[in-house]
């Protein structure tokens, strides 16, 4: 909770620092690639990964965005296709290191 313009408002920590100290966050982001060897369609791959993550992380909100990305907090799992090769790009911000590393490890076991 922070006081702004005479009102109590709810802000997250980086917003508070920017608002009151003028200091910007330095976002550290990681991306890692996983090559896929599969005959499944893109739709099937995204559905399968979504089910797997939802099953393992039942307390978390696991969203599919644009039919090719799965988002959990700052963790984004994106399906890419170059020519006939498919890969997953798993990215996350440093505050979600444990979650990101867990999801990367989980998806490496199915690739």
């Amino acid at each position, binding site marked *: 909770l922070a006081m702004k313009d005479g009102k109590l408002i709810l802000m997250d920590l980086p917003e508070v620092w920017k608002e009151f100290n003028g*200091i910007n*966050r*330095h976002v*550290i*982001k*990681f991306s890692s*690639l996983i090559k896929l060897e599969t005959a499944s369609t893109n739709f099937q791959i995204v559905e399968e990964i979504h089910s797997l993550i939802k099953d393992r992380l039942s307390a978390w909100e696991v969203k599919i965005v644009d039919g090719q990305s799965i988002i959990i907090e700052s963790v984004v799992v994106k399906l890419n296709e170059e020519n006939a090769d498919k890969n997953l790009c798993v990215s996350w911000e*440093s*505050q979600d290191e444990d979650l990101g590393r867990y999801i990367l490890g989980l998806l490496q076991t199915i690739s």
Partner: protein
Amino acid sequence: SYEYGTMNQMDIDMFLNKLKQEGITDIKTSQTNENDGILTTKIKLINEDISIDISDKGTHIHCGEGKQNLRIKIRDALLSCLNKF
């Protein structure tokens, strides 16, 4: 925790020195203006399939497959060059 502040040239030099101390010596650096006009320092670890983009907005570490131990070393070197709250 959250990291804050910017990486100026002195911080980037310190980061590169820390990478060298970790035995990472195949380093190539360049500077570009990305599409949004933000000056970005690009660091490539030639033999490792890893690249690091540093700008005022933040740092993005791109890893190939199976480079997680190295990613952690790079992250720790970077964290030691930034402030946290």
